[in-house]
């Protein structure tokens, strides 16, 4: 009845093109893209422009780190742009000690200082993520719907909080987090790299990371293995919220202003970065390294298009097409894996 031979000695020689492509395609594509831009427009490789890219990538990259956790559990968070705007306004108001002198520029501002402002932004982000995580696990509403709702709620909250207007002008301590440099390296880039390393350690070397992959890979098996699936799901939205808050603080510091329309459309760029970096929207597969590469890829692409004077309308079209293609590749690779498994 059974005529199979035990063939468990690994990949039988044959070169796994799709495994290889899934791993290194983003990196290779990144280099190709940079080479093309460098040839077409030599200014692209100037150190000013490269640091410019790095600074831009740092902002969406912070969000992409959080989004990697969420997508690893087969979830999604569409609310991050709105949550970021709301958290940024709260941080700015704290820094200013209220909304009364929202346009006072420079160090004559009397507020609570940047440490409290940063904590406030992160606190708002964590609270927003926690509430959405509870809605997903306790009310059993799909993440897409919960965070679509959150997208509207937080944007409304931001507009309400600031009565529509921006809050701008921070003291040098605050502004340093967005505009300062350590040696030649912009501070946001350092923040991004530190966070990326911490997230990589959490996912690769900590029990928590193992569980995130497990919940995304097979929630039922995770539950039957004794994991607290709901707690892990809430945790990843809290982590996402943490990064939304941190990003809000850094972004407001860089722009020297917080406004209610900040972060509009970020969710798409961020999700695109994560997916292009090889994280599967079906959960259970992905790395922080991939997300960093994916963020760089999107950052380089957008920067290059700007330098080549491509209109921002066309940029949006390109991002949209890329995200669909990346997911198509993921689906295709998944079906290949299934056949092989």
């Amino acid at each position, binding site marked *: 009845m*059974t005529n*199979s031979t035990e063939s468990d000695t690994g990949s039988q020689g044959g070169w796994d093109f799709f495994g290889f492509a899934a791993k290194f395609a983003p990196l290779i594509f990144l280099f190709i893209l940079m080479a093309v831009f460098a040839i077409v427009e030599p200014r692209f490789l100037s150190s000013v422009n490269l640091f410019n890219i790095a600074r831009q990538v740092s902002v969406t990259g912070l969000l992409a780190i959080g989004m990697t956790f969420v997508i690893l559990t087969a979830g999604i968070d569409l609310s991050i742009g709105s949550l970021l705007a709301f958290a940024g306004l709260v941080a700015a108001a704290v820094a200013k000690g209220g909304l009364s002198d929202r346009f006072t520029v420079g160090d004559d501002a009397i507020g609570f200082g940047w440490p409290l402002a940063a904590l406030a932004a992160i606190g708002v982000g964590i609270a927003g993520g926690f509430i959405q995580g509870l809605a997903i696990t306790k009310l059993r509403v799909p993440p897409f719907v919960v965070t679509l709702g959150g997208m509207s709620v937080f944007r409304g909250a931001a507009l309400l909080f600031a009565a529509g207007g921006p809050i701008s002008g921070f003291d040098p301590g605050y502004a340093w987090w967005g505009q300062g440099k350590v040696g030649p390296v912009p501070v946001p880039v350092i923040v991004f790299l530190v966070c990326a390393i911490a997230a990589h350690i959490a996912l690769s070397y900590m029990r928590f990371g193992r569980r995130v992959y497990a919940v995304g*890979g097979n929630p*039922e098996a995770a*539950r039957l293995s004794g994991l607290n699936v709901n707690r892990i799901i809430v945790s990843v939205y809290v982590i996402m919220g943490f990064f939304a808050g941190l990003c809000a603080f850094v972004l407001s510091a860089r722009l020297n202003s917080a406004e209610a329309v900040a972060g509009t459309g970020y969710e798409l760029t961020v999700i695109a970065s994560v997916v292009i970096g090889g994280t599967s929207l079906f959960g*259970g597969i992905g790395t922080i390294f991939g997300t960093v590469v994916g963020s760089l890829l999107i950052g380089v692409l957008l920067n290059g298009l700007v330098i080549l004077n491509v209109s921002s309308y066309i940029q949006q079209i390109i991002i949209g097409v890329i995200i669909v293609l990346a997911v198509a590749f993921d689906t295709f690779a998944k079906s290949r894996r299934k056949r092989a*498994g």
Partner: protein
Amino acid sequence: MSSQTNPRPLLRMSAIAKSFPGVVALGGVDLEVGRGEVHALLGENGAGKSTLLKILAGAQASDSGTIELDGLPVVLANPQDAHRQGIVTIYQEFTLAPNMSIADNVFVGREPGSRLLINDRQLDEATSQLTKSIGLERGPRTLVRDLSVAEQQMVEIARALSMKSKLIVMDEPTSALSLAEVDKLFEIVLGLKAQGISTIFVTHRLEEVFRICDRYTVLRDGQNAGAGAVAETSVEGIIKLMVGRELKALSERRAATEFGPVMLEVRDIVRLRTVTSPQAIELRNVSFNVRRGEVLGIAGLIGAGRTEMARAIFGADPFDSGHVLIDGVETAIRSPQEAIVHGIGLVPEDRKQQALFLSLAIKTNLTMAAHDRISRWRYFIDSRTEAGLVDDYRQRLNIRMAHPDQLVANLSGGNQQKVVLARWLALGPKILIVDEPTRGIDVGAKVEVHNLLLEMANSGIAVIAISSELPEILTIADRILTMREGRVTGEILSADADQEKLMKMMTAPIDRAA
């Protein structure tokens, strides 16, 4: 024995063969059904019935063999082909759209009317005619979701009739029905018979075969085990064909050991159907115990409530009432997490869906439940300890792998199952429940898994082994419980049991008033 074979049967399937990677599902099977005949297709789980039915429904292609209808060869490449030939299959899982009306479901895709517009009056009339002919007293506009299971089944039958069927295949049509509903179904089947429509009837309840069927075909291990007229055989005769004489248990019996004290006691576990899960399998006053070092086998057919019982004890599904005592202490278990704390492990029936993380490495799969044993600084994984643990179980269980970092998806079924067993062993459980521990794995690996389970019991673990394969139960169990329809129907020492006795206990009629 098939003395009065119909010279020109309605359906003749000859030498149907079908292989899947690693398994021969059908090795040249014949099936003949006469006009107006009610034909029972019988066999144990995995005997090849469902594969044969899928081929007949056009849902799966056979590797070789021929199908003749009315003496003419036909090709059934897809379900539409089968429908066109008048062969309609009613699966256990209905294919109705719950939010559409009876009429829309019966005539879906074939609505009367012009190309663009549906003639509602014609549709309703045609539907009413069909439903009345089989005694379904519901208006054609009634939504399917408002119907009982039995009524939904009648809608399926009405749909089959609307396609001018010559042959209706019913896959375990009675498993979800009450006694009165079964009687009604049988009336319908006899009505079809009177119209010259043939029925293939798959069931695990052998008494039903003798109530309704004219002829039978028994499959075993993908081969014909026997066929003939129902009137010329008996329940015993059919059971013998189903289990096969030559399949004596190949056991190396464990030396008779004195078992320890009762490790797990289950008293009066009850789970009832609810409004939200009308098709759920009920548990009715399930009680039993297992001792330290004992292997308790649980036999029963699919849907007998064995898996549901295991999941209830493990905290994976809630139950309505009953008590679980561990080491004599009453314990409330509300989640798998709590079950694990109390020393219970569960190897679920569906390895890929419920146990494995196919996108993750072997080592990650193996240690998933035992993070406490491999952690450092509380929150971190100590990769060296982990590697040691994995290597230990790799040797003890003889798990054949290239490297622990390899994806678990690339292992054979047998080695995957060993990884799952190792996951639980690493926790040092007091009680281990294994549900279909050798489903879909090689014969060689099967023996290894059996020996592992026996070793676990010898080391003092109380093992509960659920299996649909009677030889397996007889091989590994010390004591065997049989279940049917959520009830425990019998208990027997393995030494006193054989397959025929078990089959009788598993299929014994139940006093449903109880």
